[in-house]
């Protein structure tokens, strides 16, 4: 297959992925919009007005970047985990396995599909947030780059989860027991400066903290952590997870006998 054929193969997978989540938009795009609106109303407006300032900003302004990032993380992950697992479950993965599409194209197609959903939901949540607060992006390049890289990272995570999953329960275990707690403890709702020193140290082991704070830095210009270090960490994780996912595909883990 030449470069043109490879691009068609990639585009076919990517297009199918995007069509899948847009076709079932009441399940994929609408729920995060409703949930985040509730967060804005309850945490931002009702409770936030009593909390006062956080990191030099009013509470609503402070949590908006975190909530956008939380939507991006959850949706890019869940798109790939459910799509790839369904493909395995229905055995339609065999359509891809018998075809000459290289594994890196398969992986890229699924991951980019997840990224588009993550970014799409992120955009919806951003637009909704404008009903509650003003957003003045301090550093557009950092904002866009970090949100994109985060979506890539969690789409890769979703892919690996789906490779190992043997039942529909297995695709909800990681989001429920790992992803959600890490997101909530990743500085979405608070600055880690509020924590005792020991817990600040523990929090720094949470990779989501780096993404939320770098995104917050892009929008508000404040961060609990070093932004350069955060980018380096994320790129390192992306490289590691991409290689691992490719290795799993190459060995047919969960998809070949």
């Amino acid at each position, binding site marked *: *297959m*030449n470069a*043109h*054929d*490879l691009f*068609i*193969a990639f*585009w*076919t*997978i990517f297009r*199918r992925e995007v069509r899948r989540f847009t076709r079932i938009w009441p399940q994929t795009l609408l729920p995060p919009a409703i949930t985040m609106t509730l967060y804005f109303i309850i945490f931002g407006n009702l409770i936030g007005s009593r909390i006062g300032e956080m990191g030099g900003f009013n509470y609503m302004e402070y949590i908006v970047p975190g909530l956008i990032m939380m939507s991006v993380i959850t949706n890019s992950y869940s798109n790939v985990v459910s799509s790839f697992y*369904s*493909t395995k479950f*229905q*055995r*339609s993965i*065999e*359509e*891809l*396995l*018998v*075809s*000459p*599409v*290289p594994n890196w194209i398969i992986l890229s197609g699924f991951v980019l599909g997840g990224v588009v959903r993550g970014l799409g939901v992120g955009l919806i949540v951003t637009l909704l947030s404008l009903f509650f607060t003003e957003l003045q992006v301090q550093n557009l390049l950092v904002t866009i780059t970090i949100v994109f890289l985060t979506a890539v990272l969690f789409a890769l995570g979703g892919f690996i989860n789906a490779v190992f999953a043997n039942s529909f329960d297995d695709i909800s275990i990681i989001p429920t027991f790992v992803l959600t707690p890490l997101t909530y403890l990743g500085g979405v709702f608070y600055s880690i400066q509020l924590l005792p020193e020991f817990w600040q140290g523990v929090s720094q082991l949470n990779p989501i903290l780096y993404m939320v704070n770098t995104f917050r830095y892009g929008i508000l210009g404040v961060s609990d952590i070093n932004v350069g270090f955060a980018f380096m960490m994320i790129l390192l994780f992306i490289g590691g997870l991409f290689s691992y996912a490719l290795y799993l595909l190459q060995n*047919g883990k969960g998809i*070949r*006998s």
Partner: protein
Amino acid sequence: MTLALTVEKLHKVYGNGFEALKEISFDVAEGDFFALLGPNGAGKSTTLGIVSSLVNKTSGKVSIFGIDIDDNLTGAKLNLGVVPQEFNFNMFENVKDILVTQAGYYGIKRSVASERADYYLKKLGLWEKRNGAARMLSGGMKRRLMIARALMHDPKLLILDEPTAGVDIELRRSMWEFLRELNTSGTTIILTTHYLEEAESLCRNIAIIDKGQIIKNTSMRSLLQQLTTETFILDIDTSLSEAPQLDGYVVRLIADNVLEVDVEKEQGLNSLFERLQAHNLSVRSMRNKSNRLEELFVSLVDKNLNQDKA
């Protein structure tokens, strides 16, 4: 002679220790219509799974049109179309989209893929259903959809793993016609089936696999020549209380006016009719008790089983 498929010393041991293939070897020539037969669990689907890279082999070599799958899997796959035993498409996807998407995986442009999909949808009687979800298709239609999907990239070698399972006889025969046409136009076809009449009718060469070993690999004609005895069912016009004694033939009375006769290959049917006439018995109709290939298949598999027991 160009070989469409070469399988050399193919060995497969599954993770649970089950040895599915014991270093089997066989070739399929370009343009052939080849039957790979065997009882359930014999290793047919494992063999075809390895050829189509859905199953990892333990050892051995597979080449498709001279391209070793270990050296150039992409090149080998471009020549191969696969129709699996189980339905393996997204049931919620639109019928035509399944075809166009599959073509996309082979780098075929959407416009070209769309035209090709229309051709096969019409050819295989799926045109009316093209815009519906695949789950709404009947079993036979789903099988035809998988055949259409496997042909979207014009493969030179088509593997069909029980393509007519659960398909009614009328539809099965129309699928045979389509497959014959495809083979005549140059596509090499490998077929596995439990309908031995199907294999006898379509295939020129055959391999029989049992317990992970090839126990027969020859042409259909020479295999059928090995059949020494055929059993015929005769409907006669007279009611009998016991089987007539026909010199040189084993005759059984299975109903008042139905006889079952074993005929040795060298005996022929003329002398049978002469002997029946001598007993004033007229034959209204006659048929084979079972398909000829079926008789051979059963005897070969039984023989293999007895050898194992011995």
